[in-house]
């Protein structure tokens, strides 16, 4: 079959086949990005517009002072993430990042459960001045603004 193709045609067929494969890849990527990208929520947003229960999202806010509790197994913790307006209870099983503490910022990766609590698979806390999750950099400026507004 291919022996009958003229040189020009073989190049054309190759280009078309490659383009088709790449378009298929792009469509697949677009489709799964819509379904799989995990969105960033502030507690207010998570309460106001809750995402579907099993969908992976990130929740960012401050760990409320006095809310951190350790379960009897010694490795499961519960705490409340708030942004001054809304509060979301979070459960996490694992070793917490080093700078994770009450009163400081955290980004929790996980999903909302049917009862409204948040189950975190992973916690990102501020590592040092040079490494801050970008969502948190922005969060602290938002908070700073809120504080300025509040003291006016």
């Amino acid at each position: 079959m291919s022996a009958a193709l003229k040189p020009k045609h073989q190049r054309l067929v190759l280009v078309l086949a490659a383009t088709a494969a790449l378009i298929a890849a792009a469509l697949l990527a677009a489709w799964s990005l819509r379904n799989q990208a995990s969105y960033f929520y502030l507690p207010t947003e998570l309460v106001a517009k809750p995402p579907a229960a099993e969908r992976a999202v990130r929740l960012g806010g401050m760990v409320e002072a006095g809310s951190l509790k350790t379960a009897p197994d010694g490795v499961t913790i519960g705490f409340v993430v708030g942004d001054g307006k809304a509060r979301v209870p979070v459960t996490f099983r694992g070793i917490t990042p080093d700078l994770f503490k009450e009163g400081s910022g955290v980004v929790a990766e996980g999903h909302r459960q049917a009862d409204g609590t948040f189950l975190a698979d992973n916690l990102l806390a501020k590592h040092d001045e040079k490494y801050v999750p970008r969502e948190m950099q922005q969060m602290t400026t938002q908070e700073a603004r809120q504080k300025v507004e509040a003291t006016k």
Partner: protein
Amino acid sequence: MIATAGLAALWFAAALAVLQLFSGFLALRQPDNPLTPVVRPLAMAQAGLVAFAFLCLIIVFVQTDLSVALVAANSHSAKPMLYKVAGAWGNHEGSMLLWVTIMALAGGFVALLEKRLPEPTLLATLGSQAFVSLGFYAFLLLASNPFARLDPVPAEGNGLNPLLQDPGLAFHPPTLYVGYVGLSVAFSFAVGALLTREVSPNFARAMRPWVLGAWIFLTLGITAGSYWAYYELGWGGWWFWDPVENASLMPWLAATALLHSVSVLASRNALRAWTVMLGVVAFAMSMVGTFLVRSGVLTSVHAFAVDPTKGTFILALLAINIGAAFVIFALRAGTVSEGQRFAIVSRESALVFNNVMLSAVLGIVLLGTLYPLVAEAMGAQVSVGPPYFNPATAVFVVPMLVVMGIGPLLRWRRDKLGRIKHFLVLPALVLAGVAIWLSLRGVHLMPLLGIALGTMLLMVALVPLKGRRLRTVTLPLWGMVVAHFGIGVALLGIACDSAFSTEKLVAARVGETVSVGPWLIRLGRIEPITGPNWTALEATLNASYGGGSTSELKPQARSFWTPVQQTNESAILTRWNGQLYTVLGEEAEDGRWQLRLWWKPFVTLIWLGGALVALGGALALLGRVLSDLRRFIAIDKIAYRRQQQGRL
């Protein structure tokens, strides 16, 4: 003083690059102008000067010369010597200087060693290399001067991020950079060949060793980086689809495709335009990677040397270099004549198929990595992780691996599947058998497919050796067999890790015994210890495999004081059939200690496979270089004999 010398050398090198650019391209129009003979020496002198500047930077770091702003920001007199040296490139400015150094050295070596290319193409190549490096010189000298001074001189430096205080820092970034920047040579070759209309098998043979070299270093860099992240981050994972990891994977995918298409061009004179385009794309991916890593536009667990204000500069360089290359490509692609034809069932077809699959995977990784940027521009903050990357890449990787097994068995130009049928019966049976056995044991689809496919690849990878006397097998063929075998090994490791890993997270008292997989682990004691610039709590774990003799593991929770930070140092015990991975957490209020333990069967195969792939590349490179050498010696001999005869 030393810093000033370094800066002067850098300016001087930049000036030479301007001259190299000018004379390299002038030679295209007027081949016999007086500047033509100086292009090669210029490239070599430039390499020498930049290497000197880089040496100066290392010296100021070793001396902890705090009058240099970069040293004050990233070093500390109390740091161990290894990290003082490695600290020179563990930051933004230093790593950019490393980039320019490797780029200039690559250009210098091309000027020194390349004898196969026609002289005009070589000069255009060196001109293009100078063009690309000029952008980076401008970046270094105008926007991120590594030798900038501080006045007054501070009393002490800030220290180096503790996560980077690891022997990995000394080797991982330079290895990866050699790979990244080595692809600039492929880029310049492609541009040079387009400008002089010299896209030919001869050009492909000249380009192949450089692509192979860059690709070997990329492979090693990614493999080593993956292992480094695995033991340093303490999360038990070896690949996180993090933007910085993707930044190194994308050039590797493009370079792998380029490596194979350059072979088709060299031996079959087909895929001409495609090879040239891949040369441009591969270096474009290196630059995209540098942009992603250096600009800090994306959240990453590995981003350490980040400066957001400088992202725009790299983006502009990227646009100029790649834009210019694509314009040349668009103007000249029409003049690249069609190569040799081939049938649908042929080795060329298999290679084209895999090239397209690699490009598709590259596209998926690129889109997934850039999507958060696009979404942010539209006001939404998203992150993209394994739930996207794993299935979307698997769609293309699985057929690619099947064809990777079959392709090398096919003949060039035209073949029949019937001829190789009998080679494939046994592997196909093994594939089916392993798949059925695993599904009965309740293994999930993806790991199951991985293990079955990996086992099959180990078998078919060796088939090209069948019926040959091993002594007569050429080095490049050995290289291909070893590299493809390595892919199978790595795939087995990946699949076994995800199918059979067991994890345990507990709070244990001192003296308590915990089990994970076949292991019994006793928490012996916890005691404080001190290092050169840290203190730590160290646990002693006594681990026994299946009740046998015990071995000791000592995971630590470290506290550094310059800068103040805590890290978890995992302790890993390697057996022939896997690794025991232990992390010490915090002390709970009731005096119990958090322990995170993993038993990861055959996880080491992942990095062993990566090393085999790199070894395969090294064998092929050695084979090519040796046969080139033999050829030149033979040519010299003939020339000498002719001369002798002439005299008689």
